[in-house]
């Protein structure tokens, strides 16, 4: 196919914007169609209460893969990134707390207050994660190999990975095999004895997924996330102006490269003729003829809502149907009249710094597991695990003078409730979060001026995540790598000619890293040339 042809990208999330950039660089004419009035998908900034703005959904970066930042020359655009240190502050109910700094030794010194043994182990842990992460980054940057007819490039990729793996040494190789299928609770117990420390690190293995710390395979999620950031507790950085600034910059860079972006343009249907895409139909009836379509929305929405499913091969359709994408996460954003004071912190400069990164609420493994238990039977966690940020400490412009925004991921909250519905229980979820926070920062409830609750149902209807899953589909061993989204179709192509996937539902799908978008673009360009 000649260059300069029109490629339509559905959805203006970060992956689609990144894919659009690369596709434009590859000599095609990408057109991004976003349903909402702004681009960004799950990474947006909105005014959720008069005068208060927040990264309404995603509140920290993955971070973006370094080569993407370089290629898109993001430093040329005005987008200041805050990288708070400590990255994570984890209070325990009895007033003690752990701090996770960029510096391993400094973190270990704090851990020593809990356990000397753990302090020593922490360094070892950070190092093994670092060395394994290199190999995993390699894996997340490659297109999963074809099993039946591997291409020379597949062999080359596998060879490179094999070489990386061998560099881990005998023990490292065995660790990789042994750790991946483990329950993250067991994994952290092999290193640490302090419950709070175990819980903070284990939380990384359950974030965003339908997993408790005792679920087997949760360590794989932790390792996958470590591919993006090898720090034991992950990334805490975010841009000035919220996550929306990042996607805005991505859009600008894509536009400069030659991409066209239309908002308020909802795709209703992908037109298919003789097994190949011919165009897209927008809400309102407008039709756009295309040579290729790249879907940045989740696989289920792509194949069951945008396409007439009867056009799909039944085996493929069945696999997409079985793709597990039932969300178990909610988001609560609070508009606060002042800064909450945590019992574990004295109010001083140090406290301000301590609260500028992520705040982990979930003091022990059993706490996290019990939070998960509730959701298994369709209940909201009575004492949920929270991943909190207060972005206004570093970026005061998000709220009126002296006021603050508190943004909290809440686990667990199942899409389908056993009792009542989300409309009737929205308020209850907000209160549960405020009460949970109250155990650590008693003045929170008196500071609340406004509450926004984003339920799993909202994630589906407002953000377009089928099932309300923030990763477009469960990060489970059977839904990763050559199996993401489904076996035989993990190479961003689909059984429909000219239709590609580039969202989180494809490999690697590990958060705000842009890897899916960049990987997909590589395959799309190769295919269209």
């Amino acid at each position, binding site marked *: 196919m000649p260059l300069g042809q029109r490629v339509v990208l559905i959805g203006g999330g970060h992956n689609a914007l990144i894919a659009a950039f690369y596709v434009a660089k590859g000599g095609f004419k990408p057109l991004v169609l976003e349903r909402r009035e702004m681009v960004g998908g799950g990474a947006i900034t909105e005014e959720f209460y008069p005068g208060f703005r927040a990264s309404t959904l995603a509140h920290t970066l993955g971070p973006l893969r370094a080569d993407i930042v370089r290629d898109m020359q993001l430093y040329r655009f005005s987008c200041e990134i805050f990288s708070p240190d400590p990255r994570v502050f984890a209070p325990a109910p009895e007033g003690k707390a752990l701090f996770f700094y960029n510096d391993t030794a400094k973190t270990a010194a704090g851990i020593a207050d809990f356990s000397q043994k753990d302090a020593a182990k922490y360094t070892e842990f950070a190092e093994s994660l670092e060395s394994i992460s290199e190999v995993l980054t390699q894996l997340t940057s490659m297109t999963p190999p074809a*099993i*039946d007819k591997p291409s020379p490039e597949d062999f080359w990729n596998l060879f490179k990975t094999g070489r990386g793996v061998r560099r881990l040494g*005998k*023990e490292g*190789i*065995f*660790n990789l*095999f*042994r*750790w*991946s*299928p*483990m*329950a993250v609770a*067991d994994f952290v117990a*092999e290193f640490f004895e302090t419950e709070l420390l175990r819980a903070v690190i284990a939380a990384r293995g359950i974030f965003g997924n339908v*997993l408790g710390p*005792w*679920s*087997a*395979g949760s360590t794989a999620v932790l390792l996958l996330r470590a591919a993006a950031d090898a720090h034991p507790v992950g990334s805490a950085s975010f841009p000035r102006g919220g996550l929306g600034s990042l996607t805005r910059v991505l859009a600008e860079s894509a536009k400069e490269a030659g991409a066209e972006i239309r908002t308020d343009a909802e795709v209703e249907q992908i037109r298919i003729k003789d097994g190949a895409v011919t165009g897209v139909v927008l809400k309102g009836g407008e039709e756009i003829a295309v040579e290729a379509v790249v879907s940045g929305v989740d696989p289920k929405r792509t194949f069951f809502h945008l396409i007439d499913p009867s056009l799909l091969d039944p*085996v493929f359709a069945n*696999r997409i149907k*079985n793709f*597990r994408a039932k969300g178990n996460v909610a988001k609560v954003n609070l508009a606060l009249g002042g800064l909450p004071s945590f019992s574990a912190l004295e109010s001083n400069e140090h406290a301000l710094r301590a609260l500028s990164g992520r705040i982990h609420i979930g003091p022990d493994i*059993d706490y996290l*597991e019990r939070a998960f*238990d509730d959701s*298994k*039977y369709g209940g909201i966690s009575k004492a949920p695990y929270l991943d909190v940020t207060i972005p206004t400490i570093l970026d005061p412009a998000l709220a009126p003078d002296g006021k603050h925004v508190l943004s909290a991921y809440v686990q667990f909250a199942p899409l389908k409730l056993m009792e009542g519905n989300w409309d009737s229980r929205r308020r209850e979820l907000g209160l549960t979060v405020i009460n949970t926070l109250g155990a650590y920062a008693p003045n929170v409830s008196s500071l609340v001026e406004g509450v926004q609750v984003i339920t799993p149902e909202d994630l589906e209807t407002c953000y377009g995540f089928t099932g309300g899953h923030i990763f477009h589909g469960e990060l*489970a*061993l*059977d839904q990763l790598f050559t*199996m993401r989204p*489904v*076996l*035989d179709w993990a190479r961003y192509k689909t059984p429909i000619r000219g239709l590609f996937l580039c969202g989180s539902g494809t490999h690697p799908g590990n958060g705000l890293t842009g890897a899916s978008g960049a990987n997909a673009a590589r395959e799309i360009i190769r295919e269209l040339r």
Partner: protein
Amino acid sequence: MGQHYDVIVIGGGHNGLVNAAYLAKAGKRVVVLERRHVLGGAAVTEEIFPGFLFSEYSYVVSLLRPEIIRELDLPRHGLETIREIRRHSRVDAEAYEEFSKMMVPMCRFVKPILSMIPPDPTTLNPRDLKQFLFLLQRFRELSSDERYTLVQLMTMSSADFLDQWFETDVLKATMSASGIIGTFLGIRSPATAYVLLHHYMGEIDGAFRSWGFSRGGTGAISNAIASAARELGAEIRTKAPVAKILTKNGRACGVVLQSGEEISAGVISSGVDPHLTFEKFLDPSDLPSDFLESVRHYKFRGSSGKVNLALDALPNFKCLPGAGAHLRGAISISPAMNYMERAYDDAKYGQYSRRPYIDMVIPSLTDPSVAPPGKHVLSCFVQYAPYKLAAGTWDEQREAFGNNVIETIAEYAPNIKGIIIGKQVLTPLDLEREFGLTQGNIFQGELSLEQLFFLRPVAGWAYYRTPVDNLYMCGSATHPGGGIMGANGRLASQVILKDWKRGAFRSKAAN
């Protein structure tokens, strides 16, 4: 020092006996040392109440490798399998047929792996590479559908896996039970579909998914293997508990019994679990520290108990009153998926399930020899019963645990309370004490993915060898894991004999 043998096998469980039989067959002078008065380990038949014979722990036969039955000529030694069990009523849904059909190629794929010494993924040794290529090739030969299902079976939760096939809750709950038996995982936990497959591997006369009883209880299997071993020249001693494994210059050279008696041998083959072998029978100084740490990380976590009942009559089930074919198979108390999951939730926090999953069999219906005329034995496998209780000890809670099981059964068969004439309750602690199963794990260690194949029991030591020269492992803690399979004992014998050929023990044997 007392007598000298070529090989001492520690533990007279089925794997130890298989191991001994093969070694004796190769002409080695072998002695098996069993702590208890009976052979079989967890596969024993005992007369707990006069006239009632119980397959005290392990209660059904199926996994015993056909090649072992053949090579050791077990039927001649009295092994008689009664192929009777229908695991549950055949639901005439099309999906079930299709599902069963799909499981056949899955079992076929896994079957050679069960008879394979695991290759080492960290070496470029041609022998290991060849084995991996063989596996890769076999995987590539599968159809796309088969690959898809295999990957799912190796990684998914049994609940999610079954959800794709079936709708009926009670059917799914019952089938998913195979995915948790003997493990400390719930049906919704990833990786339990593998355990489901492991249990599906049950093969009798070439047909997968068939289970049976052994005439005379499971102990009869152990006795048949023991008889074969004896005929091949192995010596078997019961009531001979080992206290220590003796080493000299980093080599195992014998054992000391609790009685103080010393027995020397060129090779020690341990059929007991890694905790006993390495932490109890050896000195920490005998082992590299990283190996010892890996042994400490090896997960046992017993999760089940057993209640054996001597009955005056047959239980009468509310849903299907009277006697009938339904009592001859396995009777599963697993009414709903949430029931199963809640049973697990209790256990996670250190409590036995308030309403447990119970798998019952009444072997006296198919083999009347195990009970007096008109009377019956009811054997109940109960899950979950965590080894570590949050409150109290198992000695304090044994009675309550047993009663809870009977209460649960009574909800389905109300006459049960009136027909019990004898009751034996085995908690995980009892399994540890009586059968030497650390933490009461029936498989000598969890069948979780990180403890399988080349990772079982310890990464880098999955080849039946140990860091101590001349000391080998042959029990369920080695590949391919638990169940009355015997493959572990057979594979270990092959490794030992191969090392023998290489001359590894020559210097010792000459002593």
